């Protein structure tokens, strides 16, 4: 059995539909990760007794366990407690929560990357807290935060394929379904791989370029 062009072309529209679901799920996951990550980062930064260590553990725990097991846990446990969500919504939430732990660390390291001299200079000039953050720290932190976030977004895009295992109807799931119903896996799974690469490779090149442009030249 070898490659069949006609078959490959006939399944392409379905697969592109799957890619669109993958992209939508990734985008939604990114929004959750950005917001939740910010909350986690701020709470950790403020060093509130009990609460901050709890969120520190949250970051460690989420990063230390597989996304697939988290997805299974959410997919099977939530309905037991009366929370019935579609695979798509469950998947998006799991992806967003998983990557919020990475996003929180990105915010933290971005702010820590701003040299202490900047903070000292702001204090020496008796600049109030608000402009110190909005005019000095954050604009500099963004330079290192943006490329790091970009890399995680690409990883989220790729990791969203794991959610096919909780029956989310994304690209890999579509390819797998075609494969099992037509008894031909070569074309659908190869096209799935190519489509993932077609999005993630240019995105990675773009991020690399952005990283170089934003890098502080001293």
């Amino acid at each position, binding site marked *: *059995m070898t490659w069949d062009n006609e078959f490959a072309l006939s399944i392409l529209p379905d697969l592109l539909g799957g890619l669109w679901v993958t992209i939508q799920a990734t985008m939604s996951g990114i929004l959750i990760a950005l917001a939740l990550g910010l909350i986690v980062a701020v709470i950790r930064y403020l060093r509130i007794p009990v609460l901050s260590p709890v969120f520190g553990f949250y970051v460690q725990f989420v990063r230390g*366990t*597989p996304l697939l*097991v988290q997805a*299974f*846990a959410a997919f099977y446990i939530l309905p037991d407690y009366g929370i019935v969500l579609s695979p798509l919504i469950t998947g998006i939430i799991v992806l967003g929560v998983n990557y919020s732990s990475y996003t929180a660390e990105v915010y933290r390291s971005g702010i820590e990357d701003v040299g202490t001299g900047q903070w000292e200079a702001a204090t020496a000039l008796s600049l109030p807290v608000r402009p110190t953050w909005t005019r000095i720290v954050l604009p500099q932190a963004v330079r290192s935060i943006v490329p790091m976030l970009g890399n995680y977004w690409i990883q989220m895009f*790729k990791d*969203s394929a794991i959610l096919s295992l909780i029956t989310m109807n994304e690209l890999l799931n579509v390819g797998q379904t075609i494969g099992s119903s037509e008894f031909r896996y*070569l074309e659908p*799974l190869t096209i799935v791989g190519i489509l993932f690469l077609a999005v993630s490779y240019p995105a990675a090149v773009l991020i690399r370029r952005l990283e170089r442009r934003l890098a502080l030249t001293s």
Partner: protein
Amino acid sequence: MSTIIEHAPRLWEGLLVTLQLLVLGSVLTLVIAFTAGLARMSRQFLVRFPAAVFIEVFRGTSMIVQLFWFFFALPMLGIELPGFAVGVLVLALNEGAYAAEVVRGAIKSRPAGQTEACIALGIGPVTRMRRILIPQSIPAMLPAFGNVVVDLLKNTSLVSAVTVLDLTYQGQTIRAITGETTAVFTTLLIVYFVLSVLLSFLVKWSERHFAIDRVGKSNGARLLSLPGISRGGTT
């Protein structure tokens, strides 16, 4: 919780499979990382280009897609591998592609003076790499390798999708038998978490052990006993 204790042997079997995947996968990852990483730095286009394609393709697609491709699509080209072999191979190819960039990055970031000194002393490219650049780069590689290994551990859970009876697969089986979803998945999450914490400790320890500028018990004598640095000059 009693159901978990009742089915503990099943989980234990799964844990052993997961650990096998982790160890075999890590060893093969290391081999692939150095092969592809060094090949990508070659001056020969015919060596450099395939390595670059391999690295970009395996970094650019998800591991679960690669796993499915090797398990379902590859047999259609006449190559049929058992699930466990596919698991180890894909884990290593995927993580090896990431680790190859670690190898390349660490070696490239050695100070130019090292290469210049080798040239001045007439040390050829092969010896330069093997005796000078690679040994010096290992401490710089360790933290990133640590991330790769923890990643590999987490990715072992994916092989449950290609019929490998690992920890995740056994957990799913127990869930199907007992319906104790909360207990089963809480146990799985805790076991994976403990494993990754242990792995990070191991990595931290090796970072301290191999650090070039380590302090404390170690001193100059031990530093000079590092392979590759000890030769010549000390006696």
